[in-house]
């Protein structure tokens, strides 16, 4: 069952890579968050049920609830429908997502986990989710989709943590969650400011501060 969820996560990755519509990717992120949220239920760990339930609920609330909602709100606020001109096209993105998966498997093959784990796919999938997030941040021009990428990156990390280290003191885990939460909010606020100042949120055009001027700028 765990492997199925991991499988799903990978699929969500590829989908989010493929879609250039902001709302679609927000939805995918929400699903991904939900999937990660339920992972603890399928772990063979011996954790007192109350704590387990708390974790699941909080995670679901934050990752599948508040954050996607906030992103939608932000999208409406700055009013962008779709990724106009991504640096990498959809199909190429999907291929590179596969490449990221491969890399993740390769790296994790070199990192044998020193103890028994529920599924051998946890580490590679977590890594691949993070790499996907990375890739989205790099390849998308819209500020909002970069925030989404960041969220996916965090999802990967969270998956890693929650799947391998549930025994870790929860306070820290929740603190991390909280931090991500605040981080996303601050980013969102910045995005609002950007859209107010520049009347667009295309970060590829936010390159005024540089030590190197391309020809076009020089000529101006």
């Amino acid at each position, binding site marked *: 069952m765990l492997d199925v969820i991991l499988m799903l996560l990978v699929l969500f990755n590829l989908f989010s890579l493929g879609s250039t519509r902001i709302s679609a990717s927000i939805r995918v992120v929400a699903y991904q968050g939900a999937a990660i949220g339920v992972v603890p239920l399928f772990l063979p760990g011996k954790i007192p049920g109350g704590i387990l339930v708390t974790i699941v609920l909080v995670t679901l609330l934050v990752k599948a609830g508040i954050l996607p909602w906030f992103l939608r709100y932000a999208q409406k606020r700055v009013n962008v429908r779709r990724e106009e001109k991504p640096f990498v096209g959809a199909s190429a993105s999907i291929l590179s997502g596969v490449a990221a998966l491969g890399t993740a498997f390769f790296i994790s093959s*070199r*990192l*044998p*986990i*020193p*103890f028994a784990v529920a599924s051998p796919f946890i580490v590679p999938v977590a890594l691949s989710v*993070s790499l996907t997030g*990375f890739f989205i*941040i790099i390849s998308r021009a819209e*500020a909002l989709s*970069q925030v989404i990428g*960041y969220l996916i*990156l*965090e999802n990967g*990390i969270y998956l*890693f*943590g929650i799947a*391998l*280290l549930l*025994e*870790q*003191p929860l306070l*820290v*885990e929740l*603190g*991390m969650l909280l*931090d991500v939460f*605040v*981080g996303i909010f*601050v*980013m969102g606020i*910045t995005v609002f*400011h*950007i859209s107010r*100042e*520049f009347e667009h949120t295309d*970060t590829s055009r*936010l390159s*005024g*501060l540089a*030590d190197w001027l391309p020809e076009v700028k020089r000529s101006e």
Partner: protein
Amino acid sequence: MAILLFLVPFAAGLAAFVIKSDRLRRRLLFSVACAHAVFSLYLCLFPSGGEDYRWLWFGLDALGRYFTAVFSLLFLCASFYAVIYLKEEKSRPREKKEEGLLFNNAPEAAFTGCLLVFLASMSLLALSRHFGLIWIAMEATTLVSAPLIYFHRQRSSLEATWKYLLICSVGIALALFGNLFLAVSASGQGPGTEISIDRLLGPGVRLDPLWLKAGFIFVLVGYGTKMGLAPMHTWLPDAHSEAPSVASALLSGALLNCAFLAILRFYQLCLANGLGPFCRELFLIFGILSMAVAAVFIIGQSDYKRLLAYSSVEHMGILCFAVAVGTAYGSMLQAANHSFLKGALFICAGNILAGFRSKKIADVRGIAHIMPWAGVLWFAGILAICGMPPFGAFLSEWIILKAAFSSGNLWLPAVYLFLLGVIFIGMTGTGIRMTFGVPSIPEGKKSFLSLLPALLLLLLSLFLGIYMPAALDGAVSGAAALLGGQG
């Protein structure tokens, strides 16, 4: 008791958001800074009976004490300058010279509050003994310093803020990965080993080397982003050049050191588990790379705040280089010198900017003639940060050089000296161009008060250069001892 270092500024910060009266808020800021500085200095110079303070995940060992003292002194001067700066900001017409567009500032309450919370989160970072907590503190510094950068509500600073926010968040996310890897490597001690320094440095704790290595890589890249190591330094020049000078001073003088501290915490574990050579190799690579990149961008730089930012990149490289060649002592000393000098330089830069209304080096001529104090301090600071005696950087860089020679490989000191030389030429050339000559504006503003903090910081570095009291020496070598530094 030391937890107050965190609690007081935090509470004060929260208060600052709600306080209405400007004067009261400024007084609050300054008095908290004073109290913090005095207390941390006391803790640093007279460690209570050598017994490190502990309270569940909080604690203050020699390393923490040293870094706290340094950034708290810097914060004291910066806050003094901030008070004057905010006064002026209220008065002067906010008009940006380059584009000529009007802009207004963030509410002063938010600025002051963020400053205090920033101090609080840095203290938290120095205080915390748990890697998760360190990570939270680091993320917190990022989040609260973003509004500091976006003080001037204008496009360029917004762009800088966005870059800063995204790049640093990504970096810190990687650092989080590093923490998790650490937890995995610690899981050999039975499930749920808490990843706190004291637990993992405890007797008979063996960490899984492979995962520890991976963790260190993640942490180095992640916190290195925050610290401004090349090639992750890219946010730094933008943020430093766009932030108000007081924020730039804090960012480059205090924040970078704190990131370095976070990396050093991890380095302690690696040392204990015999990964010293591995870590030092990585430190060496990033150190030399940072110095080289800084050299590239310092030569022919056109914006003097960016110049200072790149010089920070260079000095972060020097810190790593020092640890790599095995002189933690030199590294600690250099960190202090860099904090003080860079703070002084940024405060001078703030005054120059206020006088000349331009960040372009080409627009600034003959500071020494129309703003004598600013000119003197600016040029002295530039010489000092290039390692000229009688300032402290001369000694620390000398110590590092000797360690590099004793490390056996003659290429290291050669490269180090070459890069320092190139940077020296770049910086002093700019300094001469700006300081001397026929002034490019009729009359500057001659306010000594706003330069007093810069003067104090320079004097501090001068003090480090010519006299080292036993207590201070003890503090530095105590901090170095934790990093396996023989001093």
